[in-house]
């Protein structure tokens, strides 16, 4: 009896610590956006009255419309392209029997272990030779053939009933039509889950844009925010206000696709 109670107490304690660790930074960010830099440094953790000041400061110092537009275009285009290319690849890997299929796929998975930092310099050389440095294309292109997303689509395609493909063939559909009119709608949960993952990765992407985007008018929100911390006396209220703004799109997308995201993660084909 008491042992069970103790055990339960420990579980709750651990869960509470985990919840605190997850939620506190978020809370602190929101609260910080309404406080002055001095209050934040002092460690104030309640709502303040400097929200408007921070907002005004942010919008005067940063060309917000432009920056969000840049981040938005990059994230949206990269997400659409990544889903299109990687889901096609995942579909192909699962649907077509070939002697070399598993070897190629194994090789791809092996490539996952190459850190991006190791590819950065050769990539930069490539893009500069292609005269693409300081363009959105340079940020987007390296991300669109995502091995992880290909892997994810291949795994979820295993649950796609092959008889549906057979039925579609008999109904007169070509392979690309099967993909477009049968596979895609059936797998929409998978697409939703992948959308969240890919959008977040692109929206939050920092290292590669930092290298390849060089003029102020092309920079993304992550670059701008990190630029603000580099100031001689960083205004933390302003930075946290910008951070709150930068978080909004991912939160929005997550809540829009939440139900499908959970289904997709469970691999639901119904």
């Amino acid at each position, binding site marked *: 009896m008491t042992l069970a109670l103790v055990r339960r107490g420990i579980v709750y304690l651990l869960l509470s610590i985990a919840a605190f660790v997850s939620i506190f930074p978020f809370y602190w960010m929101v609260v910080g956006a309404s406080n002055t830099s001095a209050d934040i440094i002092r460690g104030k953790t309640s709502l303040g009255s400097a929200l408007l000041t921070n907002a005004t400061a942010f919008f005067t110092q940063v060309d917000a419309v432009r920056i969000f537009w840049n981040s938005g275009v990059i994230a949206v285009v990269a997400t659409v392209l990544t889903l299109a290319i990687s889901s096609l690849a995942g579909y192909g890997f699962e649907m077509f029997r070939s002697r070399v299929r598993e070897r190629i796929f194994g090789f791809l998975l092996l490539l996952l272990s190459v850190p991006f930092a190791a590819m950065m310099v050769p990539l930069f050389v490539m893009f500069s030779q292609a005269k693409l440095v300081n363009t959105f294309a340079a940020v987007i292109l390296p991300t669109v053939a995502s091995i992880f997303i290909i892997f994810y689509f291949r795994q979820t395609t295993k649950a796609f009933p092959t*008889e549906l493909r*057979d039925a579609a063939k*008999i109904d*007169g*559909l070509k392979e690309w039509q099967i993909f477009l009119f*049968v596979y895609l709608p059936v797998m929409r949960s998978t697409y939703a889950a992948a959308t969240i993952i890919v959008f977040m990765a692109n929206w939050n992407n920092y290292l590669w844009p930092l290298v390849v985007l060089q003029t102020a008018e092309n920079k993304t929100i992550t670059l701008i925010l990190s630029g603000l911390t580099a100031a001689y006396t960083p205004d933390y209220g302003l930075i946290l206000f910008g951070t709150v703004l930068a978080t909004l799109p991912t939160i929005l997308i997550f809540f829009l696709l939440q139900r499908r995201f959970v289904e997709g993660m469970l691999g639901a084909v119904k």
Partner: protein
Amino acid sequence: MSGLKLRNVKKSFGSVHVIKGVDLDIEDKQFVVFVGPSGCGKSTLLRMIAGLEQISSGDLFIGDKRMNDVDPAQRGIAMVFQSYALYPHMTVRENMGFALRFAGAPKEEIATRVAEAARILELGALLDRKPGQLSGGQRQRVAIGRAIVRHPDVFLFDEPLSNLDAELRVHMRIEIARLHKELNTTIIYVTHDQVEAMTLADKIVVLRDGVIEQAGSPLDLYDDPDNLFVAGFIGSPKMNLLAGTAEAGGIRLADFPEQLVPSPVAVPAGTAVTVGIRPEHFDPTGSAALETTVEIIEHLGGETYAYARGAGSSLLTLATDNNRTLKTGERYQARFNPASLLVFGQDGKRLR
């Protein structure tokens, strides 16, 4: 007009030969059932006819046209799958009209044909539902409806009733038989259930290991099997098969050594044979008899089956002319008419 001809059709996956040379003629409007144990290649053969599997060698004709390299949609076939394979994101109506929409049929024609199929299958009330909201039997009817809508020359059914419960299976079996009468087209039907095969088919094709063991009408196969495999596969309960040796005056069965069973065919003395007799061919008025001890009794109401043993190890299944007074442990004289025996040689071939 749309019979099928298969000429030395083969299929291999790499070095694995799945279909090892099939010759078959299917007449127009015939109901043909491919039956056999799992892994015998019956589904593969059906998929080859559908165009879902390439034919490795040989020729397939539908009507008079060689179809080996023709696209599945152009073969004039429609297929019903075991798992129904309905598009989950479309309503019943959209599912049924999908193929026509892709073929570019005008909207009114699609609507008319879907309505016609819905009438035949009594699906009218379900047209705006999605497959997820239907029961197994309803899904199967939609799958059949999707096939009907295309007005195919040949219907292909791949184990369509396997996912249904027993009661529904019997019901759908009758539906399919009725459908064949109403549509009056060629049907090729794959099943591992020999009762389905017996009840539905005009012609049964028994397959084993990628080879046709025998093809013919259900009663031909029942009465006159060519080999041990077909004899054992067709008929329920299964035929009793007993090992024996031919002697001058008949056959001596290993499990009943004390008596000589008269043979319906002439077999050279000393030949090892297998004797087959169906449970329902045991008949109290028969001229020959086997002395047995009853071990298990099954009362089905209309018939009583006894499982009985002679001196040896094999258990015989006997129809007892509904002898309801029979008890386990009793001696039972299993009488039969020697003319109803089937004799098979050592290679499994029927001796005639």
